[in-house]
């Protein structure tokens, strides 16, 4: 939705970002509500949270004049208010209606963003109205009359605005915001004092033991505690200790990703400059007296360290908890399980694991796809599970963990497992080439992810959004990650996605072939080995060496890129990449060392070369090509299956 008005567009962007946050938090609270129906304290907490989210959504939707969203949020809020006031209780039907309402709200907001027609809301409104039922339509005022069932303490807070206060940023909106963080504002009204001064009066309800004055932190608001009539003793409640709960105060600043990208780019340039400086220093060393040199060296080392810290600091800013992806999953699973007549429990692990914002945005759909697949294809219907001696309720586990520079995302289910034979048959039917003989997990995964494998499934609503396994794999590879499959027939299936924590700057191993240097992301290198050329066996078009218990196909970069090798006779250095049948070795003349590199993607299709993901600058001005392990792996596989019979196709040179 571009209105052409920069101010308003910025405003809308804020609205979208903010509503997304509240919707996601609401989805979370809905799940809690769903589980806690009939368990008063937890249910109450979820209802309170939801009430707040819908209230905010209503308010911000009103600000951007998105009427249907405002109206829908208003009705959801209205229902929750009725629940809070004890007029009705939450039922499964109620929880369903709230879920549907939240989803419709999300659709409306997304449609508004895309500029497409808004979905209708009447059916949801009718559902919600039915829930509130005979209790009657109450006018929704911001100053809802409060009944005595509200627990906690009541406060009357008065604020008198002045020009001076406003100039220093203290205005009624700030007061309202602070009070809203301390407790629930049940009434806010302006008053005119006899001398024509205007004051604002807020009625606030807080948890017991909250010291409002202290929490206001110097904002001039007169605060009076109201004595709860029922228990006069409680009025003298001791003021809260200094360490009172302050979870409500938000210290979060929202920053446009583009600004962080810009900072990151500057740091990237600094990394290169620093490397150049190191180079110049080493040449200058012999001209500098030793004592002076030590000082230079110390400063150089300190700036190195600080630069690394700066880089890590900026990267940390870009990191968000994986929980952001996970949060929406429970709703998806719950719905899909109902639709498919299955019983599924979703377990989330490692939600606090942090990953780059850029990556998380791109992983949302792939993870969603894997989860949907797990529900619709992985988990068996309850009867089948019982027949196999399993619990009727299936479990899907979504977990994340950080291992060094990698983040592992796992989607596991305890269902059927992948039936290799069925996959092979289906692949043959789809006209895909299938390697003969028993397949390992990597080969099965390869088939599952082949474009054209899952055509039939795509029309199935469960697979959703047209993201097939092929797209999942493509996205993982684009993010320089890998995907593996681990399955046990009858026991379950586990998809493991390994992704770099962040892009842009990474540690890499540098190898040399002839005069050319190549960088390979360290995260994808499993092992570095040295082989004797005589051990290489020619099998069809592949060269392989014995490795562990099997054989490792070797790609010689000198041949791949047509560069004259200057290796010491008979010895090659090999980077081992990948797992199982996807494992391969990249042979270079020698390994130069490990460096921090700044990745610049070769986005220009004229410059793109298969197997090369980008270029970097080691600081001496020479360009180093960064190898793309995923594409190299695909090249070897294709070669193994003789999809590219023409060996000359390998000789394509980087431009």
């Amino acid at each position, binding site marked *: 939705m571009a209105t052409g008005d920069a101010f308003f567009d910025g405003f809308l962007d804020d609205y979208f970002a903010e509503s997304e946050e509240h919707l996601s938090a609401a989805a979370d609270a809905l799940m809690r509500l769903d589980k806690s129906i009939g368990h008063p304290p937890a249910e109450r907490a979820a209802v309170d949270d939801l009430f707040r989210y819908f209230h905010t959504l209503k*308010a911000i939707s009103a600000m951007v*004049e998105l009427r249907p969203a405002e109206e829908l949020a208003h009705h959801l809020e209205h229902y929750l208010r009725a629940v809070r006031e004890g007029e009705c209780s939450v039922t499964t039907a109620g929880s369903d209606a709230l879920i549907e309402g939240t989803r419709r709200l999300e659709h409306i907001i997304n449609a508004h963003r895309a500029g497409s027609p808004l979905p209708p809301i009447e059916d949801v409104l009718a559902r919600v109205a039915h829930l509130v039922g005979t209790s009657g339509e109450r006018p929704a005022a*911001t100053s809802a009359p409060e009944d005595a069932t509200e627990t906690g303490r009541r406060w009357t807070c008065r604020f008198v*605005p002045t020009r001076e206060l406003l100039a220093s940023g203290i205005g009624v*909106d700030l007061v*309202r915001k602070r009070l809203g963080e301390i407790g629930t504002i049940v009434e806010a009204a*302006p008053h*005119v004092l006899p001398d024509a001064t205007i004051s*604002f009066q807020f009625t606030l309800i807080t948890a017991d033991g909250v010291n409002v004055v202290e929490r206001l932190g110097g904002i001039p608001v007169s605060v009076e505690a109201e004595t709860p009539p029922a228990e006069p003793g409680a009025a003298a409640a001791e003021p809260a200790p200094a360490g009172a709960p302050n979870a409500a105060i938000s210290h979060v600043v929202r920053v446009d990703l583009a600004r962080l990208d810009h900072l990151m780019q500057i740091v990237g340039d600094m990394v290169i400059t620093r490397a150049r400086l190191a180079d110049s220093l080493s040449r200058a060393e012999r001209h500098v007296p030793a004592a002076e040199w030590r000082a230079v060296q110390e400063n150089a080392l300190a700036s190195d360290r600080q630069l690394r810290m700066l880089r890590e600091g900026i990267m940390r800013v870009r990191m968000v908890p994986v929980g952001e992806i996970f949060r929406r999953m429970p709703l998806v699973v719950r719905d899909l399980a109902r639709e498919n007549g299955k019983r599924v429990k979703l377990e989330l692990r490692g939600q606090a694991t942090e990953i780059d914002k850029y990556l998380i945005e791109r992983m949302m759909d792939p993870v969603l796809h894997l989860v949907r697949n797990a529900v619709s294809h992985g988990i068996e219907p309850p009867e089948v599970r019982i027949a196999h001696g399993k619990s009727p309720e299936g479990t899907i586990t979504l977990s994340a963990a950080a291992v060094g520079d990698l983040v592992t995302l796992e989607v596991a289910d305890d269902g059927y497992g992948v039936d290799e034979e069925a996959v092979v048959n289906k692949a043959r039917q789809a006209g895909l080439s299938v390697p003969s003989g028993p397949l390992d997990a990597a080969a099965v995964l390869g088939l599952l992810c082949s474009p054209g494998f899952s055509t039939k499934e795509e029309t199935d609503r469960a697979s959703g959004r047209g993201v097939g396994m092929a797209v999942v794999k493509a996205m993982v590879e684009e993010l320089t990650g890998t995907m593996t499959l681990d399955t046990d027939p009858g026991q379950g299936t586990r998809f493991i996605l390994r992704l770099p924590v962040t892009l842009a700057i990474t540690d890499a191993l540098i190898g040399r072939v002839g005069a050319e240097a190549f960088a390979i992301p360290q995260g994808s290198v499993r092992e570095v080995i040295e082989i004797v050329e005589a051990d290489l066996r020619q099998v069809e078009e592949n060269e392989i060496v014995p490795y562990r218990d099997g054989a490792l196909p070797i790609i010689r970069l000198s041949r791949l890129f047509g560069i004259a090798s200057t290796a010491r006779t008979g010895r090659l250095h090999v980077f081992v990449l990948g797992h199982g049948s996807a494992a391969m070795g990249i042979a270079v003349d020698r390994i130069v060392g490990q460096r921090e590199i700044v990745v610049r993607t070769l986005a220009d299709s004229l410059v793109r070369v298969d197997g090369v993901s980008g270029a970097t600058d080691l600081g001496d001005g020479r360009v180093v090509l960064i190898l793309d392990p995923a594409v190299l792996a695909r090249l070897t596989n294709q070669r193994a299956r003789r999809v590219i019979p023409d060996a000359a196709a390998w000789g394509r040179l980087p431009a």
Partner: protein
Amino acid sequence: MVRASLQAIESAEFVEASTGLEAIEQLAVTRMQLIVLDLNMPDMHGIDVLRFVRRNAHYKSLPIVVLTTRGDETSRQTAKEAGATTYLTKPFAPQTLAQAVRDLLDAAVEASPRA
């Protein structure tokens, strides 16, 4: 958007308020010649702001231009009764708003020729 259409009026200073309470706060701390009030606000209904302002003897004659998306006669009547000087239904041309504001300001200067 409202602000942009008012930019045409030279020699005027603007203060903005994004909520009803803020609008009232601005009224308290600034000497205003005119208010452009959008009935649609996040915290309270614009009509309530209007009524509050009019209840206050000091602001009985302050010109208030009310903006709203509702064009029906009842809404118009409600706004008039609450004290709207002029009532504009969205969408309107920017010039319409600017002209309405100019007219009201001119009228106010004629009524009390102070400076």
